[in-house]
């Protein structure tokens, strides 16, 4: 065996930037806790634990009188309706905005549409809901509008990206052979992107169901409004029923979408 005298490769230099980043993260975490000044000892003291226990005990047993269950059922249906309506409106508006945003109409419409989409997207649903409650009055319609405004921003961007990534040749071929722009788009590009658009819309619907459940906190109807109402007047047992309904709704949506995705997976991959 020949002795290999080649030296070992040099030890890589220490990553100072990583260390500094880690240090900064550590410092900011500590600073956050100090700044907030939460008295964690008080949180864990016997007195507050007893109060906590009493507070939790008030939630049991949940109210399961048929009357109230019917109201919760109505609230759950309303939540579903709000999320569905919001998503449908958003899909329509998103598709309309995605056309200029994908750069089919030139530079200026493209940037204008992108700016509008970014703005719609960066305001959270709850803030839109608080604004829409002023514009449309308290109720589920305000919630649906709020959802649709935020979701338009998200879907519009995803739709536009799908359009940009779709091959252009089929549409060119139709246009060159004399089809109008509308016909060329609907027979060449739309069939390519539609499955993706549908998949994105379903995915957002799933997220919107979760969001619709809490929009009621600012007056957007549905389960959230029931929860907020009953907690405000200290009816903890009723609130518990609503919480259970919310939990069941979210878990059901989770399971359903996991199953659906398993079934649809390859088609949308």
């Amino acid at each position, binding site marked *: 065996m020949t002795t290999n005298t080649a030296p070992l490769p040099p030890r890589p230099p220490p990553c100072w*930037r*990583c260390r500094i*980043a880690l240090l900064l993260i550590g410092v*900011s*975490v500590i*600073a*956050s*806790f100090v*700044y*907030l000044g*939460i008295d964690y000892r008080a*949180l864990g003291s016997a007195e507050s634990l007893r*109060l*906590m226990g009493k*507070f939790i005990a008030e939630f049991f047993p949940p109210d399961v009188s048929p009357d109230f269950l019917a109201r919760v059922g109505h609230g759950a*249906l*309303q939540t*579903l*309706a*709000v999320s*569905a*309506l919001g998503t449908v409106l958003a899909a329509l508006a998103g598709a309309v905005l995605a056309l200029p945003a994908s750069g089919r109409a030139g530079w200026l419409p493209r940037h204008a549409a992108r700016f509008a989409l970014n703005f719609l997207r*960066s*305001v*959270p649903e*709850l*803030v839109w809901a*608080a*604004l829409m409650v*002023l*514009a*449309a*009055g308290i*109720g*589920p*319609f305000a*919630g*649906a509008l709020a959802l649709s405004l935020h979701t338009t921003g998200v879907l519009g961007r995803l739709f536009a990206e799908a359009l940009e990534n779709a091959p252009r040749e089929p549409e060119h071929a139709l246009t060159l052979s004399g089809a109008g722009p509308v016909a060329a788009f609907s027979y060449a590009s739309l069939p390519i992107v539609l499955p993706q658009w549908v998949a994105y819309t379903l995915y957002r619907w799933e997220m919107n169901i*979760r*969001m619709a*459940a*809490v929009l009621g*906190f*600012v007056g957007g*109807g549905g389960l959230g409004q029931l*929860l*907020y109402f009953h*907690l405000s007047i200290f009816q903890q047992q009723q609130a518990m029923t609503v*919480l259970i309904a*919310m*939990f069941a709704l*979210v*878990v059901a949506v*989770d399971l359903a979408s996991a199953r659906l995705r398993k079934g649809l997976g390859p088609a949308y991959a």
Partner: protein
Amino acid sequence: MLALSEFRPWALFDGGNLAVIGGFLAGFFPPDGSPAFMALLFKATLETLAMATAGTALALLIGAPLGFVTTRALSISRIGPGPGRVQAGVVRQAARWLLMVLRAIPEIVWALLFVRALGLGPASGVLALAITYGGMLGKVYAEILESTDTRPARALLEGGSGRFAALCYGLLPNTAQELASYTVYRWECAVRASVVMGFVGAGGLGQLMDQSMKMLNGGEASSILLVFLALVLLADLLSNALRRLLA
């Protein structure tokens, strides 16, 4: 569906509603820039950031151990038949259910509950973030650990090493980057979430926003909205930079 959601577009053009929203939006210009309000705004922004950071740190403390327990990549009992298979399965399933309960209830609902229990203030927001994001981090950590090449860890486990050593030497070298970048992404989400947490009284910018909206003070609302957008953008940039550094 339309009936259930009380679909009434004409309500938008109702005289009373138009007057309210018109007056409110008209107040948006100019944004309120008075020094007193700016000081308040600055404090609320810091509080929002601190809430997000503290919440994510606590979420890490909840999520990392649970992810470590639930991941199948580190299961000794799955390697072959042996004692403790049933117990291990039960523990893993229990931890998985716990994670699901933690993340199934939206953070703002937790915040609302904690505000009732602990009173107004950022403590409720921090705890709410910690619980929900702990559940999400735990689940995603477990999935990341499973989706990487698990053979090194398995070799270590078969050679008789403990689970923790197998994690450190078998899985972390491959996955540390992805784990860290997902955590940073969660922090970004936490900033966005803590911005609205105040709507239920959990401190930060949201609380300020809620007050200005209830008083229909458009000028204040528009400056808050601007800070809001800047903050979300900043969190976006910072988290992208951090993730690039880690990559």
